């Protein structure tokens, strides 16, 4: 019992460190990929291939003055970025990074916690994280920031519904909300005659996968849904007034959220650690990397949505599609169980 707690804590620390490192290099990755897509060179001055650029950025931002505007709601202004940043990595606790292994005779689970409501837990953490943006936008005492915060509030509430409903199909098929259980379900192989197919939910829930992907981009405030920080109309939205490391807290929370959503998408729809040869955590990382590349690609390709288009897309297109998907999946499930 105690050893389980200890191994959980050790794993939590390892996951946190890896996540923070990945987050730093995600900024490098994004700048490099964007540069290649726009026919530029990208960061190449600091260290070999510019690999020390995230470090240099961090040091630079730490040295900047921490400006608090006179009109700001001071306490709230100082706390709000921390809310975003602290809550972002917490969601990684329920993502399974591998099967149970044995270290010195003790069984060690490669997940921090297998709770029965894991997927809902991730959604709950996501819905809490938006408070950093809303309160930061309010506390800045700036109209642009306030508008950014308001947009974020409306956007997150709308897309969270879509995000949750798109996952219901997966829940119906797997019969569980636990990510570990969902992963186990996907590791069973389906065979159609001679053809062996993994039971990945992207094959049985393609519509849910597409809806999840779109809603996840909106939920993480990324282009083309980055309305809360639209620089062309709102200067920089909710973080106009932030400087130095408080600004970077928002920035880094966004990247951690991207990584977590990618890990979630890989685990929920693409079989997570499961792969054609040598299953392991590297498959999860490869799949998450593909999603991260997709994120960057989107940013390089698509222009920003208009605000009413964004809300219209959520409520008039994605939500009905998600409900249709739930109804179809439920009927097929009943038919499969012989109840129809």
């Amino acid at each position, binding site marked *: 019992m105690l050893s389980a707690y200890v191994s959980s804590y050790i794993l939590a620390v390892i996951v946190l460190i890896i996540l923070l490192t990945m987050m730093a290099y995600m900024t490098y990755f994004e700048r490099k990929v964007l540069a290649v897509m726009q026919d530029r060179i990208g960061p190449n001055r600091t260290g070999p291939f510019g690999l020390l650029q995230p470090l240099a950025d961090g040091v630079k931002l730490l040295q900047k003055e921490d400006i608090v505007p*006179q009109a700001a709601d001071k306490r709230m202004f100082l706390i709000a970025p921390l809310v975003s940043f602290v809550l972002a990595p917490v969601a990684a606790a329920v993502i399974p990074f591998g099967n149970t292994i044995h270290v010195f005779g003790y069984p060690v689970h490669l997940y921090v916690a297998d709770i*029965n409501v894991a997927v809902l837990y991730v959604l709950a953490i996501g819905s809490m994280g938006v*408070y950093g943006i809303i309160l930061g936008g309010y506390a800045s005492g700036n109209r642009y920031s306030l508008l950014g915060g308001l947009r974020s*509030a409306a956007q997150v509430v709308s897309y969270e519904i879509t995000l949750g409903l798109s996952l219901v199909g997966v829940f119906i098929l797997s019969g569980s909300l636990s990510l570990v259980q969902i992963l186990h379900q996907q590791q069973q192989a389906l065979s159609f005659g001679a053809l062996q197919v993994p039971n990945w939910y992207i094959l049985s829930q393609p519509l849910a996968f597409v809806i999840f992907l779109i809603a996840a981009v909106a939920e993480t405030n990324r282009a083309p849904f980055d309305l809360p920080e639209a620089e062309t109309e709102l200067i920089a939205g909710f973080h106009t007034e932030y400087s130095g490391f408080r600004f970077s807290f928002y920035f880094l929370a966004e990247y951690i959220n991207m990584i977590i959503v990618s890990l979630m998408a890989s685990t929920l729809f693409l079989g997570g650690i499961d792969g054609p040869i040598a299953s392991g955590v590297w498959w999860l990382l490869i799949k998450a990397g593909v999603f991260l590349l997709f994120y960057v690609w989107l940013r390089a390709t698509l222009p920003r949505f208009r*605000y*009413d288009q964004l809300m219209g897309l959520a409520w008039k297109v994605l939500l009905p599609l998600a409900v249709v998907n739930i109804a179809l999946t439920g009927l097929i499930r009943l038919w499969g169980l012989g109840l129809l």
Partner: protein
Amino acid sequence: MSAEVVVFDILSVIAVLAAIGVVLARNPVHSAASLVVTFVNLAAIYVMLRADFLAVVQVIVYTGAILVLVLFVIMLVHQEDLPEFHGGRPVQRAAGFILGLILLGEVAAAVLTRSASVPSGPWTPAAVQSAGGNVQALGQVLYSGYVLPIQATALVLLVATVGALVLARPDLPRLRSARRETSTISLGHPRGTDVEPQPTALPAVSASQVKPETGERELVMAKSGDEFVDHPVWGERREP
């Protein structure tokens, strides 16, 4: 004292302090932020009671959706524009005080008559485990013993949804065909269309109404952005 009691004490003290903050805060946004803290601590107490699902739903529904929408509204309101947010009407204060006392008495009565003497129900931790977990156990109970209440709740929510749709419907539907169809939802325009009704043509200006061009124009110098407006620029401190 076991570790569980210590954790419970910490959580409940923070929850109660934050709840006091909700009432005492001068700024409604601060009240809402305190309420977030209360809800999260309450969710943590649910987790201690092994009600994982309830805890997560509490965070998603109350903290993640309802409070965000409440914040959405009160962030747009000037603190000074709120009518008597604190104090003011003595009758309301007295009524609030008495209702609060009654609520406190009810809670005290419930705690005193219930605690420790009631035998535990059928859902022991072992029973929940054998049902497959917290979510499964809750689902079995809700969809076997409580089907009718669930459907009644669903109906009430449906009525509320229809009511919201009716309120948000563009008024005067017969005029809509004259306007440009936009088929968008716009938060900036609560009626749902982003086109103003076309103004009727202005009457023609007669030659006597037109001032002759002199080249001289009164020059107005403003000392600050809100010198000639009734309301100050948002966020700037108003002198008391």
